[in-house]
């Protein structure tokens, strides 16, 4: 056998055994049902039946099944991310690798029609409740706040413009609190207002939001000195890191602000009828999804009741319609509000007007970040008959 033939044999043998090895590994390795990294339930084995073959469900599920359970999935994704960085690409899977260890989600100018549609439905709904006070807080995501930290020459469309546009749409009934107004002063400081690897704001960012809201409500916000500030984890690699898998990214720290004057709160989650004495779920600190430490993550409806001395009560009941930016901000409000009713409209399908009536709520806070707001088609539920 000459050298050429040997080379051919190695190539054929190597290729065929690689295919077979992957197939065998795939079939032999234990199947996970949930991916911590991707934070989602993985595709289950497809069900073989004529109707599933006919309507393509079988082929779609089978493909999803193979890709979801492909051996060493994360390592492959990391290899790809490495290659992209080697070729000087500054983004991967929609995430920029910015300066100073900051990762950013790309932000592209949305179509105004959508922003307008969502704002209008909020506006109309608010107008139907003339007796209630309404505030709309719209916070930029980190890319909106730190354009100078984007990769060299990269540009992002302006969230400032989007926020101004939404403010214009909401004029009248709602008081608009623009994140750019209360966060801008802190951007040049040393204290991060956003996580570098995640799409949320830090607890400090949330504190600034709380201060702004308190002032607007006419309350005296507690100074930072009224809190014990502790770091609960230093190994938080958030959603931006998960998606991009960029290497060499320093993990974030998560801080928690505990009032020095202790409060007794009870958190009731309506979804599973559970109650808890704590605003924080420490079990998440050892998992991938560490931000869910705040309030235990997303719930359709929860109430947070706080026993406050009468002198400290500024408001008896507040309804918060929100995205997950609220999770780190709500704990601050417990020092002022006896009952927080917190609704996440993606999961809550009840009639919100009725809920307000039933609970005698006179004050509402909408809290969203700009990127989420532009995708919040669930706000349209406010416009349907059942919500009125």
């Amino acid at each position: 056998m000459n050298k050429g033939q040997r080379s051919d044999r190695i190539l054929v043998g190597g290729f065929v055994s690689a295919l077979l090895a992957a197939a065998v590994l795939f079939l032999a390795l234990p199947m996970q049902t949930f991916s911590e990294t991707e934070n989602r339930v993985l595709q289950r084995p497809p069900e073989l039946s004529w109707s599933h073959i006919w309507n393509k469900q079988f082929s779609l599920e089978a493909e999803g099944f193979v890709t979801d359970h492909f051996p060493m999935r994360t390592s492959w994704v990391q290899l790809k991310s490495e290659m992209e960085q080697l070729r000087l690409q500054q983004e991967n899977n929609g995430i920029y690798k910015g300066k100073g260890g900051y990762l950013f989600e790309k932000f592209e100018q949305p179509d105004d029609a959508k922003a307008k549609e969502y704002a209008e439905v909020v506006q109309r709904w608010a107008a139907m409740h003339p007796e209630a006070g309404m505030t709309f807080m719209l916070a930029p995501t980190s890319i909106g706040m730190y354009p100078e930290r984007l990769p060299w020459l990269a540009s992002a469309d302006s969230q400032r413009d989007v926020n101004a546009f939404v403010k214009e749409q909401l004029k009248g009934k709602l008081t608009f609190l623009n994140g750019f107004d209360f966060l801008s002063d802190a951007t040049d400081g040393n204290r991060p207002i956003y996580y570098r690897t995640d799409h949320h704001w830090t607890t400090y960012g949330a504190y600034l939001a709380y201060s702004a809201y308190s002032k607007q409500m006419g309350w005296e916000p507690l100074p930072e000195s009224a809190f014990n500030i502790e770091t609960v984890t230093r190994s938080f690699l958030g959603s931006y890191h998960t998606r991009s898998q960029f290497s060499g990214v320093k993990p974030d720290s998560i801080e928690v602000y505990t009032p020095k004057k202790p409060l007794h709160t009870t958190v009731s989650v309506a979804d599973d009828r559970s109650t808890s004495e704590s605003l924080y779920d420490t079990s998440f600190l050892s998992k991938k999804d560490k931000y869910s430490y705040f309030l235990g993550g997303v719930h359709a409806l929860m109430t947070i009741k706080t026993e406050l001395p009468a002198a400290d009560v500024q408001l008896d009941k507040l309804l918060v319609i929100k995205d997950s930016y609220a999770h780190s901000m709500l704990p601050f409000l417990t020092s002022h509000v006896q009952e927080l009713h917190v609704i996440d409209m993606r999961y809550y399908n009840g009639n919100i007007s009725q809920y307000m009536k039933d609970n005698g709520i006179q004050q509402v806070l909408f809290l969203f970040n700009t990127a989420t707001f532009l995708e919040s088609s669930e706000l349209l539920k406010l416009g349907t008959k059942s919500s009125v």
Partner: protein
Amino acid sequence: MVFSSLLFLFLFLPAVLILYYVSPRRIRNLILFLTSLVFYAWGEPVYIVIMLLSTVTDFSFGLLLSRPKLSPRQRKGIVASSIVVNLALLSYFKYADFLISNVNSVLGTNIPLTDLALPIGISFYTFQSMSYIVDVYRGKVQAQRNWIDFGTFVALFPQLVAGPIVQYSVIAEQLKNRVVTVELFAEGVRRFIIGLAKKVLLANNIGLLWHTVSNSSASEMPALTAWLGIIAFSFQIYFDFSGYSDMAIGLGHMFGFRFNENFNKPYTAQSITDFWRRWHISLGSWFRDYVYIPLGGNRRGTWLQLRNILIVWVLTGFWHGASWNFMLWGLYFGVILVFEKTWLLRLLERSPRWVRHIYALLLILVGWVLFAFEQMEQLGGFLLAMVGGNGSPLWDANTGYLFYTNAILLVILAIASTPLLKLPRRGPVQLICCFVLFVLSVAYLVDATFNPFLYFRF
């Protein structure tokens, strides 16, 4: 199913290879035919009926044609019927809605659209079947009497969905007798991996640049961004398509088939005439053999030849899609070819090599603009941006960003478009390259399906 999917690579392909090689020789075509049907039905469970219909029709017409004592009229009638059936299938599924919407807009009528999805590969397999009937008619090949062999010819999964368009005469003999040597199989693996890498590593990534550019508004686009975008598209379409052809040819080798080449470094062309000898060769030869030559080719005087060129290229354009821009694209090349035939080529021959090269590339790039935009306003807007007619500056920061983040890839693409970089036929360098390309391709394939669900983000 597509070749560049994990399911194909790591389940379907090994399964077919095992089935094929453990089976006795006489049923191997049956194995290929059946697995090809599974391959097709995977994405198109319903439309498999249409493919089978086309196959059965042409198989029967072929048998009819081979009967002795047919009058020339009858023989012509049989060929015509076959062509009518195939073109009817193609027209109904590919062109009906185009026709209806044009009739509607011209006559102000309101005929409902069929809204049918295009059956995968219909443009390819109808052309293959037609070539078969015409070749039998011309006496170039014997009619196939074995329906499994004929079915294998039409449905053969390596070339079923995106070519190359294999003419029956090329593989008639291979359907009966073919030998797979280790050497041929190794060549197949090499071609397949190169094709996979072209598609997954090169075409898909430069495609992201084109996606970014084509999705931004042309009215404010700096000229250099537009040029960068269309260059990206040119690379994307070439590496995508030729990568697919490489994979098809490589897979064919693994089962003992030798298909004709489909691309020959088209971007090194020195003229448009040259380009079309190098681009999608199997389609060009098909139109030459079954349209251009029957129309009289170049044998009936210059005027008729020029007419024939225009007809063939408008049809070539239209074959690519049911939309005016594809016809325009074909016509554009038809006109250039007419110019080249009449005087331009003589002029080019006297010019330096680099002038010819730039001439050809510029015309090809502009051609891709016509190809890329189905909406005429978008097309016009983009052409305007390329010449700076929208009043935007020549470049901006974003141009710089798009350029430097893709510079290395663009250099690789440019080199890979020329014959400069040739993988050695055998030996350790080739083995290492194949290994690296394959591993990286799998990494990019896995990443494409990586789908973190950020439920907490909302």
